[in-house]
Every structure is written in C-alpha cells, then in structure tokens.
C-alpha cells in the first residue's frame, strides 16, 4: 500500500494533469470503482484518475511509470471477470471520458475511435452510412470499445461475424513504460509479428489502447428473427447442432432455459417468450434478401424435427427488438431471483451441448442450487448463471462447489474456461486446467515484453506461480511480497 503522504502527493500530481475533478481519492468516491459487472469481487484502488484527452492519458501513464506505480485501465466497468479491479497501490485509469468517435471512413468501412467510445454509439454513428460495428456484447449500451479490445469481447452476432479480434485493424497503444507504439495497419497489409492480435484480449496487461481502428460491417439487406420453443433443453441443443451442421450460418443462435425465460417474463423486459417452455432458441438469419426464405424454412424445419412446439418469425422490427431485449437483459432480470449472481463463460464443442447441459442440470440438482442457462448456443459458449445469497454461507459453499464442477465438466468435454468474458481474477484458478506449466510460462514471456515490470493490471490472467522468470522482474517481486504479507 502506498503511504498516505505519497498517495496525496501522487493525487496532486495527477490533478495537475487531468484537473481537480479528474482524480478520485476519497474512499466513498472510490466505492464505484471497487467492483465491476461481477459483484462478488471487491478491491479498493489507491486512486482513480480520469483523463479527458489522449494527451492527458499519455502524461498520466508516464507519471505512473516514473514512480513505478501499477495501474488498471477501466472502461465502463461492465466486465464479468473482475478484470478491471485494482487494489493496494494500484491506480485505476478510467477511460470513459475518452469517448470520441474520431472519424468514419464509409468507403473503406473503417472507424477510428477513442477507447472510451461506447460500443453502441459507434453503431449509431455508423448507421448513417448503412454500416454497423459487428461485435455486440449484451452490455453494448454501456461497454466501451477499449474494454472490448482488452477482453476480445464477443456477443450474440459473433457466431457469423466473429469477435473483436476479427474487427480491429489497428491500435495506437501506450505501453506501461509510457512509450507509444502502433500495432496493425489500417492502410494495407501488416508486416512482422501479429502484435495487434497478441494485444487484443490481453486484458489490460500489455498497455492501454489510445485509439482503435475498427472495421465496420455493411448492414444486412434482410434480417429474420425466429423464436423456437422446446419442452426440453436437450431438444433445443439438438436443433442447434442440426442448424450448424446444415451449413447455414445464422447471425446468432441464442438459447435460454426455463428458469431464464421465467425470470425475463417476470421482469420489465418481458419479451413474450412462452413461460411454460423449458428452452427457447432465438435464431437470427441475415444477409441477402434473395434466398433468405429458403434458409428460414430450413431452420424452421430443423427446429420442428428436433422437437420444437412452435417456431415463430418476428413480424416486424418492434417484435424483433422485443425478442432481443429479453435476451440482452436476461442478466439483469436474474437480479430479481436473489441478491448475488455468479456467471460462467465456458465454451464446449457444439456436438457436446446436450451432454454438458444434462451434466450441469445434474450438478445443480446435487448441490440444491438454481442454474439459469442463457447463452450463445451457436458457438457452444455457455453462460450458466447461479443466483444465490452470499450471506448464506452454506449456500455460497454449494454454489462455488457447483461452479468448479461445471467448469471441470466443460473442460473434460474438450472445452475452454472462457469464451468472451476473460480470465481476470475470476478464472485464474482454472487456467491450469487447460494449460500446462510450459504453456502458461510462454504466456508470461509474452507479457514481459510488453510490461517487464508487470505494472499493468497486475495479478490477472496468468497465475503468478506459473511465471518461471518471476524473480527477474524486481518491481513485480516486491509487489508479490507485499501481497503475501498484506
């Protein structure tokens, strides 16, 4: 922990850069920044600083570099892995004021934005040109492009269009040392190592994106949204597998199970899902108008063959928006069930969906807990959510035991521990389930090139003990010692 005298001095220095109101230091003010979208974690940062301009950001990072102070970049704080939490002597650098959409190039379908630009505001700005920004996390009305870059965020429509990695063409990055580098190339092919690809999804551990050049996607000529309802989640899973195997690439295939449907329908986001169903699939097809009817008919047939009771096609934009709102606000709707919520993000091979969903159901029964499944079925990205009351110690223990069992089942099915939320703090303990020591060490080596002192988002993504050369980074070693004695 920074001594309070030093902290006050640092706060004063940072105020010189960003102005009086750009630095938060009082415990009450810092409360907002002590958790993210996953409310089970709380860490209090030393300070929070909010640059208004890229120049202020550069000076802030350089000031922290000169003092050897760790920092955590934060966008809107909607992350679901406790990735944007800072503690002890670390300073939160809030990027939400750097929200300018600098330029849009409609001919080359590119946009240059600041890291704090809100995801949906980019799509709104691009819509004037018949374009949109494809990655659409459920938090898109709040989350920032910089945060999306850090997490390599996905979203329902990533089934067809790909994740953030596939849509970012260049970045200007300030490294933890204060040096500015350009990664990728918006004006042609990239040369050399794919440092852009390495940076995307590095969860704030490699530096801070100062500006982001993203690819925009042409709005589809036609969009059809279907809702299929099933009396068993396995039937829904079989329908998903059948659609994927048919060769049609829907823009999205989302599944919600019975408990999720009922939570949504009981909330202000009620979407008109059949409340007695055990699963619904929200399927969106988009693309050229020609040939669309044939694809819709095929998807309908595959759902019916898999046991759907009904398949309904949204008649107009209003109905379509309503069906989607229920899906995108499902997390919020679960807040009605219990005060606390844990969210998982495992990905499994798509053919394993029926088996793994059955296993998750069995685990929930065994532990006497309620799991709500709402997820990207089309790419096998599960989001089992467990609502619980953390004040109930026994229930908490059962929930955490269930989480671990679910994660193991997903990994044993050939899956991975996170598809779009990131590792952060939340999934650190699972990293050795999927990576060997040598593989984790290789990840540490990459990090050390970008951030040799390990001051950028310390303690996240790769468990500390996995880094064999840990002792070679003196600043980091000192910090570990402090953490150990804290």
């Amino acid at each position: 922990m920074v001594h309070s005298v030093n902290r006050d001095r640092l706060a004063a220095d940072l105020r010189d850069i960003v102005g009086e109101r750009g630095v938060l230091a009082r415990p009450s003010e810092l409360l907002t920044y002590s958790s993210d979208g996953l409310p089970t974690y709380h860490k209090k940062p030393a300070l929070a600083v909010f640059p208004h301009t890229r120049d202020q950001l550069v000076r802030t990072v350089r000031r922290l570099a000169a003092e050897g102070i760790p920092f955590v970049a934060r966008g809107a704080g909607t992350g679901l892995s406790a990735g944007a939490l800072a503690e002890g002597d670390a300073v939160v650098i809030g990027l939400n004021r750097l929200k300018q959409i600098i330029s849009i190039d409609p001919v080359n379908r590119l946009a240059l934005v600041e890291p704090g630009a809100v995801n949906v505001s980019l799509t709104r700005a691009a819509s004037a040109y018949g374009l949109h920004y494809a990655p659409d996390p459920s938090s898109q009305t709040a989350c920032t492009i910089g945060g999306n870059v850090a997490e390599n965020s996905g979203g329902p429509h990533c089934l067809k269009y790909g994740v953030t990695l596939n849509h970012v063409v260049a970045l200007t990055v300030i490294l933890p040392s204060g040096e500015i580098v350009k990664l990728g190339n918006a004006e042609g092919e990239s040369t050399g190592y794919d440092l852009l690809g390495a940076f995307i999804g590095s969860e704030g551990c490699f530096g801070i994106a100062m500006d982001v050049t993203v690819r925009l996607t042409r709005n589809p000529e036609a969009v059809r949204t279907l809702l299929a309802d099933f009396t068993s989640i396995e039937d829904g899973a079989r329908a998903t597998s059948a659609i994927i195997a048919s060769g049609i690439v829907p823009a999205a295939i989302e599944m919600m199970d019975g408990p999720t449907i009922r939570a949504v329908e009981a909330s202000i986001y009620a979407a008109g899902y059949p409340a007695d169903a055990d699963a619904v699939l929200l399927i969106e097809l988009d693309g050229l108008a020609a040939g669309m009817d044939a694809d819709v008919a095929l998807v309908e047939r595959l759902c019916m063959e898999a046991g759907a009771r009904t398949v309904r096609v949204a008649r107009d934009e209003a109905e379509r928006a309503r069906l989607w709102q229920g899906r995108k606000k499902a997390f919020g709707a679960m807040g009605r069930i219990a005060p606390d919520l844990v969210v998982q993000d495992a990905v499994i091979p798509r053919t394993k969906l029926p088996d793994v969903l059955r296993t998750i159901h069995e685990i929930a029964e065994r532990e006497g807990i309620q799991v709500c499944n709402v997820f990207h079925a089309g790419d096998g990205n599960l989001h089992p959510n467990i609502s619980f009351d953390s004040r109930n110690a026994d229930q908490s223990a059962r929930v955490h035991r269930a989480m671990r069992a679910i994660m193991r089942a997903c990994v044993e099915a050939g899956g991975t521990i996170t598809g779009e939320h990131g590792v952060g703090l939340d999934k650190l303990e699972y990293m050795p389930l999927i990576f060997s020591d040598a593989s984790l060490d290789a990840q540490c080596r990459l990090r050390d090139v970008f951030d040799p002192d390990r001051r950028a988002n310390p303690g996240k993504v790769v468990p500390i003990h996995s880094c064999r050369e840990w002792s070679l980074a003196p600043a980091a070693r000192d910090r570990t010692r402090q953490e150990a004695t804290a």
Partner: protein
Amino acid sequence: MTLSTSSAHISPSTAAVEDAIRAAADRREPLRIEGAGNWLDAGWPVTGTTPLSLADATGIVEYTPGDLTLTARAGTPLDEIARVTAAERQWLALDPFGPPTSTLGATIATASVGPLAHAFGTPRDNVLGLEAVTGDAEVVRTGGRVVKNVAGFDLTRLFTGSWGTLAVITEATVRLRALPEVEESWALIVDESPEELDALLTRLRFAPLEPLALELVSPSLASHLGVESGRVAALLVRLGGNEGSVRSQRELLRTLSRPVAAPHGVWHALRECEPERAAVARFSAPPSRMAHTWSAARNASGASTQTFVHASVGRGIARCILSVAESGAAERLVDAAARFDGTVIFERLPADLWPRTRSESATGESGTGRLARGIRSRFDPMNVLNPGILGEL
C-alpha cells in the same frame, strides 16, 4: 465420422521436433524449418542450415464434423484436409497461393492466403489453437479446440505468421465451414483505366453481392487461366450460397457487365500460376485506392507477357508475379515497390535483392521493432529457428 486420439500425450513427431531443437541449441546450429518444401527457393536469407522437416508430422488427429473444427498435424497437406472434409460437405476456407500439397503448418506459419480471404479472412481468423515447440524446446499449447476462446494471452495469433521464428508449429486446430449448396464462378470483362475500374469497384461495393472471392486478373493472367476475355483484364467472381441467393447474384452481375462462365478449375489454376523462378510482391493500400494500387502493380510488371498481376479488390491488395528469367525484372519490382505509397510485402526474390526490401517497421528502432526483438529473444533465445528469415530481428 469422428477420429479422435488423446491429446494429453506428446506425439512422437512433436518429441522429434523437441529433440531437434534441443540439439540445435546445444550445437549452436540454426535450423531451417520445412513443410512441403514449396517455399524453400523463395530466396530468403535464412542462415539456418540444418533442415527440420515436418514432412512426417502428418495426419488428422481429430475431426468431428458437427463441431466444424478439425485438428491435424502440421505437415498434413491442405489437399488431404480438403479431401477428408469434402466427404462431409465441409471445407477449410484457406486457399494460399502455391501447390495444394502445401502443408497446414506452413500456411499458418507464413499466414499465407488466397482469394477466399475476401470472405473468410486469413489464417489468424481461422486458427483456433496450436501445438508448437519454442526455441528453447518447450512444447506449448495455445488456444483450444473450440470456436470461441479468450483464455490467456493470445499465442495463437503471435505464432501465426511468425515464420517459424518463435516456435515450430507441430499441430493446429482450425475452424471449418460448410461447403456452399451451390457454387459458380464468373469472369467479368474489365476496363483497367483507373476511372472505369474505380466506377466498377464502387458499384460492386454497394451492390447486394456477397461473393466468396473477387479477384481482378491482368490480361496476361486471364489468358493464362483460359478466361475468354479477349486479352483484356477480367474480374473473377466466385459465388456461393443457396440456389436463390446465387441466382440473384448472377442476375446482378449481368446488370454490371457481360459475365462469362469462368473456366473449370480457374481458382486452382490461379493458385498455381507462378512460374518456377519468380519474383513476387504484394502491394496494398486501402480498398478505396484499389485502382491506384492496381496501376502501381501493373506498372511494376512492365509489358512482358511473362508477368501476371492479380488483386483481391475487396482487400485492396495487388500481387505482382514476374519471371526472373527475364533480366532486370526483379530489380524493376524492387524499384517499383520503393516508389509505391503504400505497403509492399515481398514473397519471393532472388537472394541478392532481399537486403534492399526490409521495412523499417519490422526491424528498425521503432517501438514495434523493439517489441518484436524482445519477443524473438524470449521465444528463441539461442536464435536457432529460421534465423534471418524476417531480416535482422
């Protein structure tokens, strides 16, 4: 069909790579990494002398069609993957220029692409995970076998396109796609004047058209490919989708120009159009400047009938292929590249010309150059993996 073997153990061919790297590091004898050997004559100044062949590291390790993913050993030829997946009406949508015997590992290591990149992206967009052996003989696994994965720092992207200089890829998992229900290719006659070309490309950009590939070919290449364009340039359009969607796109092409059916096998022929001894470079700039990029590449090629130029117009990249049998041709290409106000990447050149082509961004004192060198020294500390292939890293 489901082929599956346990992935927990290290396969004999990976162990052999591990041993070879360890021995090379001990003896300070740099390795030259080989797949099918198709690119070894590309002229790069690799100082590695001891060959490390992945030719025996072949075979499909796991293929579950319902998952649309496939795991194969690095030395597996692309045509074998194509054969196995076609039986399930699927494909790996990567068609790098060069012979179909090119290996999966080399395609990923060199990030090589072909016309399908227009719709399906490059290897970085299609690779899900790798097994690779680093320069200090550590076997690492990156990514995974599922289609979406953000666990850990992205070594998959780092190794893809790193030309074997960080790790030797021994196995890869890739994303597959379903083969389109209907597929057909057309050739449109194209007027190469910048104004006409610009106008056509603008119309295409806004048209309800979603081609799998869109490749402009120079008159000499059109004629080599057997396109009946009457010695003018042609735009090859590969359409795919269901019956209705392909029909409507075909109709649309008729409103733009007078399309003729492209010759059977035209895409294979395009992939293999390079003469044995060639100098090859790619010119790239934003797609809106395609007409300009095209004329730069066309001018670099000169008037010789032995030169071919083709361009992925949606991606803004023109590829210029010259026969080095013609004296001065390769020098002309290097000179034209130096004058081009965009990015130029060389694929093949006579060895003596390479030193004149190195871009500062990859190797210079810039921040990215420093990062690249730092990565290189951490993943290949003894400098035994393909040293020199990316210049003086």
